């Protein structure tokens, strides 16, 4: 039974959604159970896939057994990179499923069944994106996760959520259509839809403007969907005004999985030599990422409420990943992929904490953090772990991803990118310690020393229930676990990249005599 696992992981949430669709009308109480059991099973299957791929290295599954000749059937390929992303998506999905029963009643209107159907279909889309080895099937999966995202975010009580979701829908459709157009150009040029097939044909005759236009279209489409800075105008409004449960489900996953798709396109479909063989235009993309990092950090500084600040941090995190991927060396790419995993858990922790603290209100002014350490010690502790991850303190995963990214930046000699990483880490520190200061000393500046007036603590309506804390602490624990496991994880990524032909250093740049082999030495 285990050889069906690559398709099995996509089918678990899919059948869960269909069962909810059938049974949920009469017995709405059954849906949380289906979601929890489904996502739990998905975590187990994802771990089994990861464990096997860590040994074997690559696992391909042909739906319908159409193997010869290559490209007639749809192939699902799992290698080191997407096995890790699969596990991260599964754990985040399970934590949101744990978080949802308590939170649901207050936020969504009276449609719990529809929420669970859409949530499970969102997970199906994300698993499908991560597992598929077929370029057009990836588009269908992107559309499923996009449609469910629009519906989940438009369901909330706030009127501005619908306007923000309308803009998200328009931008998302443009992005997905550009990706579809890019795949069409690739099909026109190569006659194949299978990712490995496209790669072999492209390697044979690379020099063609059709392939270059295809690459540009795919990249612009994916940057639009992952909200890279100039194209990411839609993100802050959608996750701020959207219902907190939908934001907690979509924010940590959708942008990160799109970054994974970009990595897959660069490494597997077009191939390293094709992307970086040409001129230095990858430098331009890294400078674009530097602009994204700094712009996101500055917008976060200017944000007055918690959720908008977190959204602007997402924009700068996307800049980390895009910059890392385009540094044209293996450490940069390892940092980018590792950051996909780490950032998913950090963003989940912060959004779950924001969901608990803010409750129904979309705008949670920073002044309302006053005395929060006393009122909500457990929630604030988890929030602090997420914050330390964002700042990049060991042993959280934020530190190790910044370590790999800075190492990649130094090896590529791109000091602008390294500088941007450091500056944005400092700005993150300012952002979160500003919150801690308000939480401990109160929001009146200048009057907190030891003799300052004690912060008056009045209990407010926010109380964390059992499910919230379990999910919060699961996410905070994962932030640390991914950090501690960074050696093993980076080893798996390095081996996967090596197989895909990612050189240690950029072909053009003569890397300093770094001769140690990429064994995981730390």
């Amino acid at each position, binding site marked *: 039974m285990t050889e069906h696992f690559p398709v099995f992981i996509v089918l678990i949430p899919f059948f869960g959604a269909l069962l909810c669709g*059938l049974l949920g009308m009469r017995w709405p109480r059954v849906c949380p159970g289906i979601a929890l059991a489904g996502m739990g099973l998905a975590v187990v299957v994802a771990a089994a896939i990861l464990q096997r791929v860590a040994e074997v290295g690559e696992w391909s599954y042909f*739906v319908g057994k159409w193997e010869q000749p290559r490209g007639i059937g749809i192939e699902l390929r799992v290698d080191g990179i997407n096995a890790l992303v699969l596990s991260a998506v599964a754990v985040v999905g399970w934590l949101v499923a744990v978080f949802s029963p308590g939170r649901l009643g207050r936020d969504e209107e009276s449609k719990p069944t529809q929420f669970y159907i*859409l949530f499970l279909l969102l997970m199906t889309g994300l698993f499908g994106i991560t597992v598929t080895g077929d370029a057009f099937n990836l588009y*269908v999966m992107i559309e499923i996760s996009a449609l469910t995202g629009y519906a989940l975010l438009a369901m909330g009580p706030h009127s501005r959520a*619908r306007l923000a979701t309308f803009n998200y829908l328009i931008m998302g459709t443009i992005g997905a259509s550009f990706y579809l157009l890019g795949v069409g150009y690739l099909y026109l040029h190569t006659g194949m839809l299978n990712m490995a097939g496209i790669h072999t044909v492209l390697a044979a005759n690379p020099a063609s403007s059709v392939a270059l236009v295809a690459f540009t279209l795919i990249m612009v489409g994916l940057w639009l969907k992952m909200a890279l800075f100039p194209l990411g105008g839609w993100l802050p409004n959608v996750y701020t005004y959207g219902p907190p449960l939908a934001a907690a489900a979509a924010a940590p996953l959708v942008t990160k999985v799109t970054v994974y798709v970009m990595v897959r396109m660069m490494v597997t479909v077009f191939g390293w030599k094709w992307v970086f063989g040409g001129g230095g235009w990858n430098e331009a993309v890294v400078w674009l990422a530097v602009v994204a990092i700094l712009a996101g950090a500055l917008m976060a500084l200017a944000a007055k409420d918690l959720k908008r600040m977190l959204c602007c941090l997402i924009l700068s995190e996307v800049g980390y990943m895009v910059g890392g991927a385009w540094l044209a060396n293996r450490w940069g790419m390892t940092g980018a992929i590792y950051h996909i995993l780490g950032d998913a858990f950090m963003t989940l922790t912060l959004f779950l904490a924001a969901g608990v603290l803010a409750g129904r209100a979309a705008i949670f002014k920073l002044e309302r953090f006053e005395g929060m350490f006393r009122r909500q010690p457990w929630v604030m502790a988890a929030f602090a772990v997420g914050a330390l991850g964002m700042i990049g303190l060991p042993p959280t995963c934020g530190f190790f991803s910044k370590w790999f990214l800075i190492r990649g930046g130094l090896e590529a000699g791109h000091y602008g990118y390294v500088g941007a990483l450091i500056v944005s880490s400092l700005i993150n520190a300012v952002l979160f310690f500003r919150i801690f200061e308000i939480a401990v000393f109160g929001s009146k500046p200048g009057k907190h020393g030891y003799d300052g007036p004690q912060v008056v603590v009045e209990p407010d309506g926010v109380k964390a229930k059992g499910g919230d804390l379990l999910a919060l602490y699961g996410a905070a624990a994962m932030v640390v676990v991914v950090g501690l496991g960074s050696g093993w994880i980076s080893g798996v990524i390095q081996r996967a990249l090596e197989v895909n032909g990612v050189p240690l250093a950029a072909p053009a740049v003569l890397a300093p005599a770094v001769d140690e082999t990429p064994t995981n030495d730390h």
Partner: protein
Amino acid sequence: MRAFGLIIVLLTGGLLLWGVRDFPLFGAADSPANGGVVTAYYLQHTMQDARVPNAVTTVLADYRSYDTMFETAVIFTAGIAIFAILRVFDDRGGRRLRKSQDAPVKGDQYRIIVGTTSRLLIAPIQLFALYVLVHGHHSPGGGFQGGVIIGASFLLLAVARNLQTSLDRFPERRFLAMGAGGVLIYAGTGLLCMLLGRNFLDYGALQAVLPATGPEMARSHGIFAVEIGVAVTVSASMFAVYAMLASRGRLKDGL
């Protein structure tokens, strides 16, 4: 805003037109897409593998059936998404109900003629839809087209008469269950193939279940079962979306 839009449009248009320069000639038989191994295999082996002369149906429901399963899921998702966004259960929801300020469209006096002709037309339409669904193997057609035409027959009733008469024949509980049921038929067939020991959606395994059929005819019957699932979902979802949009989610007074 207008200038910004114009710049983006000219930029993208220029890039795409520059790309057209290297396109193979329109209709070239030896272009990588038309002359490739994949296309030749599809056209040559559609009869040998699945006994289905319509190559599009074979590719749609057998070679790339994983794609089509998730496309059916997209339609089901649209139905559920619009239900989640628009549906209002208790009308006293307190939300100010803005009626559209336009004058009602004149022409109600023709309602009797339109109503009677549509009632006469609906039965042939549904018969034709079943023909399209069943005949998908031999001629253009199949699950999507058949399902939409069945849905369209209910839409015709809703537009010609009023939404309530359609909802009496196709109540809300039924079209929501049918939406999920159709996709379950599709995925269930695939799962059955998996339980019978072959890969997911490999209909050759169905020969163990179907009486006296070889693997090719089993594939053909598998394609037909899958097309039925698609038709069920598409018809239910199309009617659900129209019912929600035409009544602002209250499923009472339609167009």
